């Protein structure tokens, strides 16, 4: 059992948990994630690590309500426990002094991008961060991102905060302005990462994306998280989750992440009707996946 030391909403439907997990806290590096299971009948889902505190043995995870498991997770509070948390999984981000790095965080992906941005900054890079969200309320980790960036740009789809538009608009501006960019790191919805990959491919800018396929064990045993890289199968949990964006087959990722859509929707519907039946009075934020609609429900990475 892994105890929740602290839980708080960062935005409607997006919650940060500080979890007692000394082993993970000690080893976590930017780019890595955890897999968790809430209760005995629960599924295993990959979840973003936002930060960790080795001295106190805690790790911060950030979860967006989407499917049943994430909704259930986000109903947990300080003092509750999570049955299983395993990690840190995946290869860490490759941190080096590249020069100028643009770090792009889309929606809850910002939580995954943050530790990488922070490490890149520490490694001496000039870090330009672009954070995008649907609206003002869903912009997360702004002060944290600002603290580790030489420049921070924010976009909202509806223009309710900062600049109206998409993160790709900002990246295009940077490119058009002739900013020298040595590396782009992008974490967010698949459509966003694909759009960025298409843009930087033309400019020949090395681009890394963090992929979020369906995953079960997270140790390379099951092969469920296979992604197509240059036409060959690679495993996101062992070979990734970060890959060269220009080699990723995003269409296959979208297709494979839709594999259980019917089951996920059924699971969620039954969970919600059970919740209504139980006259649960807590505020439930019914965020249906996310606006791009191509991310696997319940997947936080």
């Amino acid at each position: 059992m892994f105890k929740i030391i602290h839980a708080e909403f960062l935005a409607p439907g997006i919650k940060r948990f500080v979890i007692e997990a000394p082993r993970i806290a000690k080893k976590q590096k930017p780019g890595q994630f955890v897999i968790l299971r809430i209760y005995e009948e629960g599924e295993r889902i990959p979840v973003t690590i936002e930060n960790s505190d080795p001295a106190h043995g805690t790790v911060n995870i950030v979860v967006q309500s989407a499917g049943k498991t994430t909704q259930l997770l986000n109903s947990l509070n300080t003092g509750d426990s999570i049955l299983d948390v395993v990690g840190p999984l995946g290869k860490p981000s490759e941190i080096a002094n590249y020069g100028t790095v643009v770090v792009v965080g889309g929606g809850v992906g910002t939580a995954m991008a943050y530790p990488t941005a922070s490490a890149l900054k520490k490694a001496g890079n000039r870090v330009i961060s672009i954070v995008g969200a649907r609206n003002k309320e869903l912009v997360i980790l702004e002060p944290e991102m600002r603290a580790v960036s030489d420049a921070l740009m924010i976009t909202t789809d509806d223009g309710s905060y900062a600049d109206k538009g998409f993160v790709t608009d900002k990246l295009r501006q940077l490119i058009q302005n002739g900013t020298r960019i040595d590396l782009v790191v992008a974490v967010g919805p698949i459509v966003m990462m694909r759009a960025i990959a298409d843009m930087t491919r033309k400019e020949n800018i090395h681009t890394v994306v963090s992929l979020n396929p369906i995953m079960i064990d997270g140790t390379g045993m099951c092969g469920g998280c296979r992604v197509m890289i240059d036409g060959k199968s690679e495993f996101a949990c062992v070979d990734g989750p970060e890959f060269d964006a220009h080699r990723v087959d995003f269409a296959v990722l979208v297709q494979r992440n839709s594999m259980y859509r019917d089951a996920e929707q059924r699971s969620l519907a039954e969970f919600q009707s059970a919740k209504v039946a139980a006259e649960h009075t807590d505020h439930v934020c019914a965020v249906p996946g996310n606006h791009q609609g191509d991310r696997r429900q319940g997947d936080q990475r």
Partner: protein
Amino acid sequence: MSTTAKKSQNPTPMKERMKIPRQLMPEQPALERAHNYEEVNLGYSAELAQQEAMRCLECAKPTCTDNCPVGVNVKEFVEKIVIGDFLGAAAIIRRDNVLPAVTGRVCPQEDQCEGTCLLSKKVKPLGIGYLERFVADYEQRMGTHIIPSVTPTGKKVAVVGSGPSGLTVAGDLVQKGHKVRVFEALHEVGGVLVYGIPEFRLPKQIVREQLDYMREMGVEFETDVVVGRTVTIDELIDEEGYDAVYIGTGAGLPQFMNIPGEHLNGVYSANEFLTRINLMKAYKFPVYDEPMLDLKGKNVAVIGGGNTALDAIRSALRLGARKAYVIYRRSDTEMPARAEEVHHARQEGIDFQMLTAPVEFLSDGKGWLTAARCVRMELGEPDASGRRRPVPIQGSEFDLPLSVAIIAIGTSANPIVQSTTPGLGTNKRGYIQASEETQRTTRKAVFAGGDIVTGSATVILAMGAGRRAAKSIHDYLTTGDW
């Protein structure tokens, strides 16, 4: 034949023994079991067991024991069965085998103990596996585990992976007085015994009971630890004070065929398919949250001819598949699966498409599998494995309509431990180098065995490696010599 000084306790005259037929294993009727998840084999009664045990010829030099990777003293335990001392028989098995209820069910006995049984020269070999299972189950029913008393040595051993190999090391070493802690990456202990081998072949309750017994003996388990990620081998030794580490991380990354369409929805690796069912209980969705594709009324095929392939396709049949195929590129004689499983699968109505290989998976245009384009094969000259190489027959292509295809063509080395342990030698294929005799790796105080050393093999071979490792770890811990 019995030239030992000790008088045989078997009342049946030697000449009569060969006349007793091998006692059949009671089993669920094939068409019934094809639709449930209960165990296929029901187990011997005491009478059947004693009748079978009477057949043992009590060889002066028993090859059954020589052929057992953990060296179970078959002759001695079978004799105990003859006289009705079933707990005595269990105690004899347990000297060499910490998981008798498991091996009695899943060992390929025809390749091991029973393979060279003297009886088999004339009649069917002694049912050693069935007898082992009987004894282990009897002991469990009686609830009289004998917990050996040991003197603590003050030494600590970390075991990485809780599959058959790691459990063997843990069981053997804890009985020598060493403190043993087993680290498991998944949330449940047992490795392939829980995520891989299905309920109908190895009930999880059996595994749990064996694990409880190990806990009673003092073995500690820690789940949710991916060694290499959560903690490294060096940290276990330097910071957590382990005197020796055994790596038994098991099967690696599932291999794919690299043919077009392998990424389609509906194409699974056998490991994923079996993990969803056995570990995550996806077949109980939505009571359990992990989903899997609904197989009811669907055509399902497995590609491969090993035990994993048969476990997967027989699971699919039980989950309602309308047609369940095994697609195997060689012929019956080359199939690596355990003979009893092939026999059972045929009884249950699995359709074996032998000398056949898929060349492409076809889709509905929306990313979902609809068929496998297959080609028929013929056997040519022997290849490196000594088996005749399958060669495609020109113009033999045909399409097999499928909703789900399960790839079970083996695994390759999982790199996590190797890549995070400096100085740990690996071979060309990425498996950990370990001495065949001592299971020592190239790193002092680090031992390895099972599939992470040999590549995909069997439960009992992994246990054999564990046995050798436990012995050499004990030697190392007591002498300090490396």
